[in-house]
Each structure stands twice: as C-alpha cells, then as structure tokens.
C-alpha cells in the first residue's frame, strides 16, 4: 500500500522559478525526496567536491554546476549559490533546493537539462503549489489564489489574487461565519437550557443581524461580476455594415501602440480571439479574424452565426457610417443588439457636412427600454478621435465608472461566487422563517447551510466535492 501511496509525491520535480528573461539572476527550484541527491550529481563545491549531502539545511553554499559528461575543461556550466530547505520546512514541505544561477536563458536551460538527465522531472504548471497544498502547507483558497497569481493577465487580477493570498477573503468570511455561529449557539443554548437563556425578542434582533450579513455578502457577490471582468476581460464583438469602419476600429484598437496581449487559438469552436487592452479593461474581440477578412460579416457567416456571436458576447460595439442613412440591414443589426450591452459608434464624424445619422435617430431606432441609456459615441477612425470616449463608455458600462480603491476586496473566483450566493439564499430563508413567525429551531436549518457554504470558501468545511475540485484544479490524476 505504501508504494502506491508514495507514487503521489515520489517524483522529484524541477522548474525555472523566475521569469524567462535575460535578467541578472535566475532561480531553478527542485523539490522532492531526491532533491539533494540529484542536485549533488551536478553540483560541486568551490573545492570541486560532490558534497551537497553533507550540507546543513537552511544554509547557502557556493559552488559550480558541472556537466561531467563533457571534457574536463568544459565541465563548468555556471557559478551558483545553492540553498537547501529541508522537509517539512519548505514551500512544498518536501526537500527543496534552489539554484541561484547567473541567469541567461541559455545557461538556465542547460542547468535544467542537466537536472532532468539526472533524474528530475519537469514540473507541470503550478505543481509546486499543488504539492504545497497536498502536503497541507497551504489551504485550498491560498492554493487557488497562487494559481491565479501565476495566470493573472493584468495588474488588477494580480492585485485581487494577492489580496486573496494574504487572506483578506479569509478573514472577511471568517468574521461573517462567527456572527452566524454565535447566533446559532444562542438558539441551541436556549433550546437546551430555556431557564437560563431567554429567547424573548430574539427573532427581531436576529433579523437585523442577518440583514446586515446579507448586505455584506450581497456586496461581495456584486464585486464578483466586476472582479471577474477586471480579471478575465470582456467578450466583445464588433458589428456593422461593410465600410462602416470595423476594420479601422479593430486596427485602431490593436494597433502597434496598443498591446496585443495574446493570440488564443480555439475555444469551444475554432474562433480566433484577439485580446486588446483598453485602459484598465481587457477586451476579448471575438472572431476578429472573420471581421478582418471581410467587412461584411453578416453576409459572410450568415445571420444565425452573427446572432450566436452577439449572444455570446458581453459587449457589442456597433459601428455605423454616419454619412449614410440607416437601412434594413442596420435594422437587422439593431435587432441583434437588443438586450445586449451595446455601444454605438457613429463613425466618420470628421465628414461633418455629410452627417445623416444623428444621436437622436439612433436612439429612436433602439426603442428597447434597456437601451435608454445607450452610449453613443462620435468617432473618426481616420483621425483616431473618440477612442478615449469609448474607453470611458466601456468603463461606465462595466465598472460603474468607479476608480478601484486598492483595498477593495474582489471576488474573482467562480467557486467562491457560487458559494456566496448559496449563503446569501440561505440567509434570505432565515429571514423568511422569521417573518413567518416560525419558532427558533427552524432558523438553524438555514443558518447551518449558510455557515457551511461560507466555510467551504475558506476550506473550513469539507465539501464532498473537494477532492474533485482539487484534482480538476491541479489537473492531476485521471
């Protein structure tokens, strides 16, 4: 049995822990039961001895990485400092060795290769964190946050994950749980010892307290949407008739002065996605390749496809040539935009003499109530006018135009959001029971649920799906 179990953590893994750049110093991290033994094969001390095994834990030693398969005069790969952290006093709770090399991608890769040849396995993304979690070094929320830091796409995402890492969510949730458990304890005490714990007037008091907790959770949930947008960006689609200026808009957004963050090939369908940064916000432009190839997107891919694209999008940028009249084709597009967060761009504003479409005309056509506050921006792609207005409009639409205070707690994790929602719903039911004048012993059913849901967020309650969650989070096992 022991053999089977040890397989879980038996490998010794290694990876370059610092950014892959030609920086001055780089770190290669090795973790696992054979960390010392393997490193010893490729390391000699300043006195040219393989004596890593004799080194005391938690000390730094100076020496060389050598490749002994080479001729003697070429053996030295790099001059390094090695720090050794003995299990369990390390990040992963395993033996960990960190090799501080002089960096440079070539040298780092060479060292890595040597380690791999000597018995290490290349770590999967996040595997050090996975081990830290599995070995009980960090809890699930921390592990989640670290994974988020690793994959953070922008500064906001990083900040939010760091807040989480520092346990801000943890302490917030913990405080709410304490309020709930105190009330539950009081009810229980009163049921068991009615002589000494009086429930007269308790319901009203409880109602007020629970209302307060509901507010706080509600606020956290509302940050979740915004937090998600800040972290993950907005799925955006550009629509408009041929020659309205879609390509120009795209080029302006993705132009050389604006960073193209990634090129992600293939989500569920084979769509090319392009990601651009607009101020604080990341926009994922859906199917921009299609738009690039032909201006006439609706004609090319058909109304159905356009519809599904629009439906999938969180934001529609509808670009109109303000020098030509609105026609049936525009009508089709407007129908598509109904009930969607839409920004209308009245392009070719520079040709002021020939303007045929005004804001009022557009507003009349968008008769839908939800588009009462439809943002309409005059742009000139030719002159690059209106992009700042667009930036502001997007920000208004998704972030309530607020500037993010750094300390604000953002829920950026879907698992957390769902659990917060559960807690929210359960507490609503408590208030419902109070309003129906049911006796106190009924409140505990839902108080308990709320308490458990909050506990699952911070790993203080063992959810049955925990193992699944962990296995999927770290893509381990099969």
């Amino acid at each position: 049995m022991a053999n089977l179990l040890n397989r879980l953590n038996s490998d010794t893994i290694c990876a370059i822990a610092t950014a892959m750049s030609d920086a001055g110093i780089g770190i290669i991290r090795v973790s696992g039961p054979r960390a010392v033994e393997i490193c010893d094969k490729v390391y000699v001390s300043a006195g040219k001895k393989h004596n890593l095994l004799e080194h005391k834990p938690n000390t730094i030693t100076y020496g060389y990485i050598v490749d002994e398969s080479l001729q003697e005069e070429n053996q030295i790969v790099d001059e390094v400092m090695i720090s050794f952290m003995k299990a369990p006093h390390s990040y992963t709770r395993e033996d960990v060795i960190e090799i501080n090399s002089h960096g440079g991608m070539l040298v780092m890769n060479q060292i890595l290769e040597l380690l791999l040849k000597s018995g290490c396995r290349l770590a999967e993304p996040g595997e050090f964190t996975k081990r830290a979690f599995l070995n009980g070094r960090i809890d699930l929320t921390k592990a989640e946050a670290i994974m988020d830091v690793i994959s953070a796409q922008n500064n906001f995402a990083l900040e939010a994950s760091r807040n989480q890492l520092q346990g801000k969510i943890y302490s917030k949730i913990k405080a709410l749980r304490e309020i709930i458990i105190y009330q539950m304890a009081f009810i229980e005490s009163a049921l068991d010892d009615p002589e000494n714990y009086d429930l007269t007037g308790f319901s009203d008091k409880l109602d007020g307290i629970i209302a307060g907790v509901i507010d706080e959770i509600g606020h956290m949930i509302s940050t979740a949407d915004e937090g998600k947008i800040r972290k993950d960006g907005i799925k955006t689609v550009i629509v408009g008739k041929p020659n309205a200026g879609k390509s120009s808009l795209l080029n302006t957004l993705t132009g050389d002065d604006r960073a193209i963050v990634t090129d992600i090939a293939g989500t569920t369908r084979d769509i090319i996605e392009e990601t651009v940064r607009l101020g604080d916000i990341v926009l994922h432009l859906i199917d921009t390749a299609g738009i690039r190839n032909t201006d006439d997107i609706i004609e090319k891919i058909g109304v159905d496809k356009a519809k599904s694209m629009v439906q999938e999008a969180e934001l529609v940028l509808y670009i109109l040539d303000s020098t030509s009249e609105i026609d049936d084709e525009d009508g089709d597009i407007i129908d598509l935009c109904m009930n969607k967060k839409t920004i209308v761009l009245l392009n070719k504003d520079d040709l002021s003499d020939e303007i045929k479409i005004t804001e009022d005309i557009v507003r009349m056509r968008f008769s839908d109530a939800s588009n009462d506050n439809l943002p309409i921006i005059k742009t000139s792609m030719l002159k690059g006018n209106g992009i700042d207005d667009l930036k502001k409009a997007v920000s208004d639409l998704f972030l309530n135009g607020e500037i993010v205070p750094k300390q604000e707690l953002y829920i950026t994790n879907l698992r957390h959001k769902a659990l917060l929602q559960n807690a929210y719903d359960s507490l609503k039911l408590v208030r419902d029971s109070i309003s129906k004048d049911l006796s106190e012993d009924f409140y505990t059913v839902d108080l308990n649920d709320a308490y458990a849901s909050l506990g699952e967020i911070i790993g203080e309650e063992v959810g049955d799906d925990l193992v699944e969650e962990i296995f999927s989070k770290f893509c381990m096992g099969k």
Partner: protein
Amino acid sequence: MIDVREKYDVAVIGAGHAGCEAALACARLGLETIIFTMSADNIAFMPCNPHIGGSSKGHLVREIDALGGQMGKAIDKTFLQSKMLNTSKGPAVHSLRCQADKMEYSKEMKRVLESQEHLSIKQAEVSEILVEDYKVESEEEEYTKKIVGVKIFSGITYDVKAVILCTGTYLKSRCLTGEAITYSGPNGLLPSNLLSQSLIDAGIELRRFKTGTPARMDGNTIDYSKMSEQFGDSPVIPFSFDTDPADVQRPQVSCWLTYTNEKTHEIIRKNIDRSPIYAGIIEGIGPRYCPSIEDKVVKFPDHERHQVFVEPEGTYTNEMYIDGMSSSLPEDVQIAMYRTVPGLENCKIVKSAYAIEYDCLCPGQLQPTLEIKNIHGLFSAGQFNGSSGYEEAAAQGLYAGINAAMQIQGKPYLSIDRSEGYIGVLVDDLVTKENLEPYRMMTSRAEYRLLLRQDNADIRLRKKGYEAGLISEEKYNKLVTKIDEINHEVERLKTTTVGANAAIQKFMEENGSSTLKTATSLAELICRPEFSYETLAPIDPERPTLSKDIIEQVEITIRYEGYINRQERQVEQFKKLEKKLIPADIDYNDVSSLRLEARQKLEKFRPTNIGQASRIGGVNPADVSVLLIYLDSMYRGKNDEK
C-alpha cells in the same frame, strides 16, 4: 473446588437501564443470556431523578421503542404524570416526559426480565473478565484478544461468547456529601471494587467521572401552598408505539414549581469552599449540562433565582425529589440552603444530596458497534461509556445488546448514523469525541433534528428493529401500512384543489383567512397558519378516516416540506463523507502530510470513515482533505494495478 462452570452465550454485567435492555435484546434474539447485578431487588433502579424522557431524552425512549426495547413500555405502565414538552416550538423539539413511580418501574422491569425466556438473573459481583489472545488484522477489523468468560467473587466462572459491561456508577464508587465520604454505590448500595483492575489488565484505560443527585424531602414537611402546581397532559400520549392510547389515560399526580432566591445563593456562596468539587476533593469531572445548584450559582451570578421542581418519587413513599438543586455541599449547608426556598422552610431531609464518583472508559476505545477495540466480544454501554442519564444508558444497552447478538449469530451489525436517530448521534459522539464530562443527550447535538423527531421514530427505525429480529412481522407490517397511508394522504392533499367558489370563499372568511384567487390545493391551505388538517374538514368531504398519529405525520410533512427538503440535502452531503471508508489497517504514518496532532488523534480513535474522522476534535478540515486525497490516490492507484 467442584467444577460448576456454566455456559452462556452472553453475560451482561449490571442490571440498570443499560443492562436490562442489553440482556432483553440478547435473550429475545434467542441467545442464552445471564445478567449479573449487585442487588436483584434493585433492577432498573432510578438512583437520581424520578422521570423518564424530557428534551431529547424523550426522543431516545421513542427510538428504543421503535427498535424493540423495553423502556417505553415499562414507563407507560408505571408513570404518575405525562407531559409533552416544548409544544410552543417546532415539532423537532417536542419531547415527551413522564414522572415515574420508581418502585413500580423497577418492579415492572424485574417482572419482564424474570419472565423472559433464555434469560437468567444472578446476584453477584463480577470480579474478572476472562480473555484469550486472538489475532485478527484486516481491512475490516482488528483484534488482539477475545472474551471467553467472566468470574464472580465466589470464584465461579461462566463461559461466554460475549460480555456487555453495564456497570453504571458502581465501579469503585464513592459518595460525597461535603467532607463526608462513603465508599458505596448510589443510595447506599454495594460498589463493585474488583472489576476495574481486571479491565485494566485486559488493556482497557479507565478514568474517573462524577455525577450528583439532590436531596429527597419528607413530603409531609413541604408547604405546597407556596408553590405552583404542575399538571400532566390530558389526553396522555403513550411513549411506546405499541401501547394503546386508551390504556394510559389515568389519574395523574402533580409536580410543584418553586424558586431559589438571593438568600439561597448567599448561603451557597459563603460555603462554596466546603464543596468537595471546589475544595478539590473530587477528582472526577461532572456534567456541565446537569449542573449542581452550586455550579449554577457560580456560572450565572446575575440570575436572581433558579427553578426548583418538587417531584414525587412514587406512590409508595412520601419522599419528594428536589429537581434543580443537586449538590455535594455538607449536610448542614444543605439543610440551611433548602430551607430558604419558598415551601421548603420547614422541610426535613430524608436522604441528603450527594455526588458520586466512579470508574468509566477513557475515550477512543469504542468501535461504532459499542464493542471495545481490540477485544472481540467485549461490548459496553451506559455510564461506563461516559454518558449520563437513564435514557442514554438504555439506548446504548439496546444497541450493544443487538450488536453482541449479531456478532455471535454472524449477522450484519446494527448501525444507526447521525441522520437516522438520536441513538446514532449518541453512539457516534461517544465513539468519536473526547468527552471530558458525563455525556448527556441534548437537542443541539443532533444536526438533523427536523428529521429526527420523536413523532416519527417508528418510521425511522422500526425497520432496523425488524431486521435485527426484535420487531415482529405483524408490528412491522402495521408500520408499512401506516407509511403507505401517510404518503397517500399527502399526495391526495397536494392534488386535491378547491375552487374559488362562493361557498369556499365564505369558509375562508369565516376562518379569518384571505379569499382564494384561483383554485388552491388543500396542501397549500394547510400551510396557512390559521388552518390545520382538522379545521379543513368542512371543505374536504372526500377525506378518509385516519388515525391521529397519521394525521400528525401528514400535517408535518406538508407544513414543513421546504425545511425537511433542505435538511435532507444536508443529510445527502453528510452521507457522502460517511460512505468514504477508511481501511481498518490504515497506517497513519504513511500519510506523510498530516499534522502531528491530527495523526495522533486519528491513531487514537481510528475512525471507520471520513465523516467520522472529520468529527474528531483536533482533526481540522485541512487534515481531512489530506486524508481524502490520500485515500483517493490510493484507490486510483489500486484501480491502476487491476
């Protein structure tokens, strides 16, 4: 010595509430059973309060009855007063409580034991348990010894296959009234001084617990005019599902309520240093939830008064039990203290209050079957397991008795989990938790109490009693019919609608209810607080004739459906972790990433599943996830190998 070695299947040591249920269960399941008692005239003796049931304990009695135990039937025959408590609250916390005639209860139980086939009663002090080496180590079970017999003080031995320890408070017991110490069992009965050492020799760890009882007063010296009279219910609901309600409608005896006051508390505070607990004479730890009057005064310094119930001990005696004022203060303080209470000004004490100390089992040594770990065939129940209370004892006795029988007969063990009964909660807590004081049942201990009501104990547990063999085919079929009738009626009420016609609207108005906008189901109407099943009769001409208990189930099911459903979801979550089994031969040293404390606790309690592991104090959720992952990767690994 002449060899008069006797052979039995089961020996039960102790004939208190645990022992009686254990012995009856074994004998009824066809096993030759002998029950040992220090005094055959004190079988099922009630050394403390004269009542059975009460908050959450009433649930236990109902469950005992559902499984085929005796307690509910015995009290139905011998109660002096009966009352359903907490009726102003939800059905989950309704609890039946009966004042017992102590002597009649004891006599009734003795009669039942004496007339039980396969059961012998023996007055003797068991001085030794006899064990042999027995090595079993597998994924399912682990043993190092097995029980082969018991030896009594006279030297005679009995060969048995199983022993059930129900020693109550009798192991090396001593009673304390202030500075006065008596080396006796409760109420002056003989203690059992020899068995402890034999248990220790078999590898069992023991500790000292204490409990206490208030004084008994001469009823003729009490002035009841200064107290408020407490009546029983009418009509009375019987405890047993098999008792005909008509048989329990009889004249009842009253209890009396009075209060302590500042003068009482003053005397206690002045003399608190003479209490053996506060003076440090008592080593045993007492129950926090059944506190002595001195504990209450210390714990609630702001309370101006505490309730005192004056309850009859029986019809055979004048003695009155002073509920709420148990104490171990010296007798002179007791007299002064009791006499400050209105109505007790001139009281004379027949029996003084005292505290009693005794040996019982250290935590972590019980299996979920109530068999003691490592010793095959040695079961235990009641106060020996660290509990307190007649009902707790009886429930364990029945549970241990059934499981001893199942073991001997090679049948599957009885298992009741926390979502199935208070007995399940009780057993799990005794098995899993490091209770540092006598364990008393309380409603707050049951997580799923909306499902574990006293009114549905038969629906929850009778099937298990039937499967064990203690419930007859006939009784079980009766239950199946009852469940069918409940389900049909619930379904009918949900699907039968009344239209918004004039007659109906008039009925609504007459009953102070809002008129109907559309056709509405009868079930929806029952949910309105102003209606009940009963009051809807005029607009429900199709209804079948149903018994009261069926109507009660129908009403609860409909009215609290949302809560019940949510609680059932909680149970589903709970069961998922209960189903994740931990192999009996697990080596926690292999789980390298467990914290040291968690590893020690897991090693000590050796839980059988993850749910149980998660309830052990000192094992936190992170430890549980480590364990989950360990087991999961183990199973994944095993499947790989196949």
